[in-house]
């Protein structure tokens, strides 16, 4: 059933985000550390082990696939509720800091990608 897939996704998120909260509390900061990333790893492991045993039927997979297909529209909705006005009102300091941070971080991507490259690299396309 489709709901099985949705439930696997939901449970992965609840465990991962709880773990992120716990890590935050343990090191004494009021923030979730990597909850989403941990959830992703849990989901990958869960999906892999279930499909190896043949326990993840097509409808269940569709329950997860739906959410990943609706991801871009959700991101658009997220963009539509950003505090754009406040960002622009921050004035030249905020704009300059933001612009420089993006430019320099972009520039650092190829530098880091080229360092200690693994033996073979698979293009994603």
């Amino acid at each position, binding site marked *: 059933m489709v709901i099985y897939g949705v439930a696997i996704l*939901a449970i992965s*998120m609840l465990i991962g985000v709880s773990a992120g909260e716990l*890590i*935050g509390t343990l*090191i004494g*900061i009021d*923030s979730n*550390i990597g909850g*989403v*990333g941990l*959830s*992703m*790893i849990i*989901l*990958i492991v869960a999906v892999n082990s279930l499909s190896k045993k043949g326990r993840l039927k097509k409808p269940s997979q569709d329950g*997860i*696939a739906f*959410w*990943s297909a*609706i*991801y*871009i*529209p959700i*991101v*658009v*909705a*997220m*963009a*539509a*509720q*950003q*505090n*754009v*006005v*406040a*960002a*622009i*009102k*921050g*004035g030249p*300091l*905020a704009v300059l*800091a*933001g*612009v420089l*941070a*993006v430019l*320099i*971080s*972009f*520039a650092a*991507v*190829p530098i*880091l*990608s080229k360092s*200690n490259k693994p033996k073979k*690299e*698979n293009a*994603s*396309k």
Partner: protein
Amino acid sequence: MDSIKNVLIENSLVTAFALIGLTMYLSYFISTKLTRGKLHGSAIAIMLGLLLAYYGGTVTGGEKGLADISIFAGIGIMGGGMLRDLAIISTAFGVNFNQVKSAGAIGFLSLFIGIFLSFFIGVIVALSFGYSNAVDITTIGAGTATYIVGPVTGSALGASSEVITLSIAAGLIKSMLTMIFTPFAAKFIGLNNPRSAMIFGGLMGTTSGTAAGLAATDPKLVPYGAMTATFYTGLGCLLCPSLLYFIIQLTF
């Protein structure tokens, strides 16, 4: 008119689905007809989203963009943290775990480099605008990391609300520019494989900016970038009010 408005308000999440669906349609239409597919439909959709957010912000004076207009309140649910995180996590469904493992170490390193880079850029900009107090400088640097790290650091150090607002603004600008310019920059910075996407997520840090920027570049890269980016804010909240504040205090 009022009864239609009530229907839209009472079914706000459904209204949001309809509105975002129409926005996507319009964006892909503009993409194929006006730019012949050169500018990706989702990149246009994200820019339209930001424009709508600006409109919402100016009309209502609120903080949640279009979602502050009552009939569009559902945008706040659809694009809010809960569904956004659920959708981001679901993208891991298509992930190649071996890629994650092989790029794990460099992805982790990129997190530290990313936080240091953005923080010190913020520090330098703050200095050039005449800020000289260690708390102010640290808060602005933290905000340049992400708009969540800024206020967390600022409140921990007892910064003034103006400085905190400024730090949020710097982080918001970074996030929006990442959303808009990632698809354009992708070619030049080799952002076309899982490994560079993980590095990218670690360096940029803003989950929203990274996720939206990669979605507009190549949706297959989203999970890799999102996976590292999600650690950034937490790590930033850990490092900025402690180690980085300490460094700034020693220097100034």
